[in-house]
């Protein structure tokens, strides 16, 4: 009977904890609808990789030798070797984005930049807590509020905390409706939250929409060459959408490709959720640092808007600055809701959408710039 019980007796308390964490992620995905496309596969994968002598990881058997496990193979091919999974996902994300509200209101670009402040501040805090530089950058990039960027940067920098970073990034993206209002109210007054903004969008031609992704790729590539894989594939997806002659490819990118990659990415990331790597004090610190990053992203965008208001005649509602994080479209909806709560006739949605879309570019640029600064 020993052969039946050997699996159960081999489980340590750390693996039981990972089963619980996997179950919590699955619960949050299904019952609370927190980023289910990623949290459910990650939760299930956490259970798979923590079963003793699991066949989803590489194992060495006496008399047979090394046998590859599917999740370890997916991680090696899809993330470790070339970061292909997150980069291909960017094609789908780019194809989904409508840059119209941003192109017709270009001052929102500045908030897409300001709201990346939390990334860098978190890097410094992580350094104070004793993490090495590559891990500081990988943890800070949680503040990009963009799963593929977080996974890619932490993989290129060979961070040992990629599992915790991915869980933190996707969890806090889902918690934006709770985190952002708290952060915004810390640094704004009711009077500031009631500022009304006129929306007078410029019209954007089809030619402009086609030229935009090409120009952004070139500029990003000149300023931060390491960002080209991220920015380039995001803009490639957008060009597929805007060119008007590749509707079937755009449709495929937005739906089939994005869903396929998302399906594989979550379960692949669970490779880094083995108990030995995940159950430690550093994981708890990373969860706290991730929250810090999101809070200070929001505060950075809001304070920048308040700074600009010192010089502007037509004031900007500072909450719009907070929409400059990359959590699209959740953050824009949060700002619209907060605006209406203060004044039911104050609709900030289109301004917030512009800032939110700028945040998509800002976060990807931030990831590329960090890689550029650390690798060169």
């Amino acid at each position, binding site marked *: 009977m020993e052969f039946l019980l050997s699996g159960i007796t081999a489980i340590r308390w750390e693996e039981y904890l990972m089963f619980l964490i996997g179950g919590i992620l699955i619960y949050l995905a299904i019952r609370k609808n927190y980023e289910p496309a990623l949290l459910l596969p990650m939760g299930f994968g956490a259970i798979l990789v923590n079963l003793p002598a699991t066949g989803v990881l590489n194992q060495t058997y006496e008399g047979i030798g090394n046998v590859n496990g599917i999740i370890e193979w997916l991680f090696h091919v899809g993330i470790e070797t070339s970061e292909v999974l997150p980069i291909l996902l960017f094609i789908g994300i780019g194809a989904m984005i409508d840059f119209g509200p941003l192109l017709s209101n270009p001052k929102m670009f500045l908030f897409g930049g300001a709201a990346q402040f939390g990334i860098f501040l978190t890097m410094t805090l992580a350094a104070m807590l004793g993490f090495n530089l590559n891990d500081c950058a990988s943890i800070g990039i949680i503040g990009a509020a963009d799963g593929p960027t977080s996974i890619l940067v932490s993989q290129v920098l060979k961070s040992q905390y990629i599992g915790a970073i991915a869980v933190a990034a996707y969890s806090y993206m889902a918690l934006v409706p709770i985190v952002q209002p708290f952060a915004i109210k810390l640094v704004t007054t009711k009077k500031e939250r009631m500022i009304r903004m006129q929306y007078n969008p410029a019209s954007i031609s089809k030619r402009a929409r086609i*030229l935009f992704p090409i120009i952004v790729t070139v500029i990003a590539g000149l*300023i931060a060459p390491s960002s080209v894989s991220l920015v380039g594939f995001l803009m490639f997806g957008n060009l597929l959408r805007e060119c008007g002659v590749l509707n079937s490819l755009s449709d495929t990118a937005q739906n089939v490709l994005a869903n396929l990659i998302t399906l594989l990415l979550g379960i692949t990331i669970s490779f880094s959720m083995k108990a030995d790597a995940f159950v430690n004090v550093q994981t708890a610190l990373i969860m706290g640092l991730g929250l810090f990053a999101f809070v200070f992203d929001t505060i950075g965008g809001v304070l920048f808007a308040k700074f600009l208001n010192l010089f502007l005649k037509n004031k900007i509602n500072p909450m719009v600055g907070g929409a400059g994080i990359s959590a699209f479209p959740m953050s824009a909806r949060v700002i619209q809701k907060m605006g209406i709560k203060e004044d039911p006739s104050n609709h900030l949605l289109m301004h917030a959408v512009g800032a939110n879309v700028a945040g998509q*570019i800002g976060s990807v640029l931030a990831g590329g710039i960090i890689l550029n600064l650390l690798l060169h």
Partner: protein
Amino acid sequence: MDLETVFLTLEIMWKGMFSIFIAMLIIAGIVVILQKIPDKKENK
């Protein structure tokens, strides 16, 4: 805590934020120019 790493992150902070702002300013400026591009006129 390694002070050298802390100072390095501060250096990355100012370089990183500055680079992002410059990139966003350049892109915003180009977008203002792109706004002036009309759509191609349809042949009658």
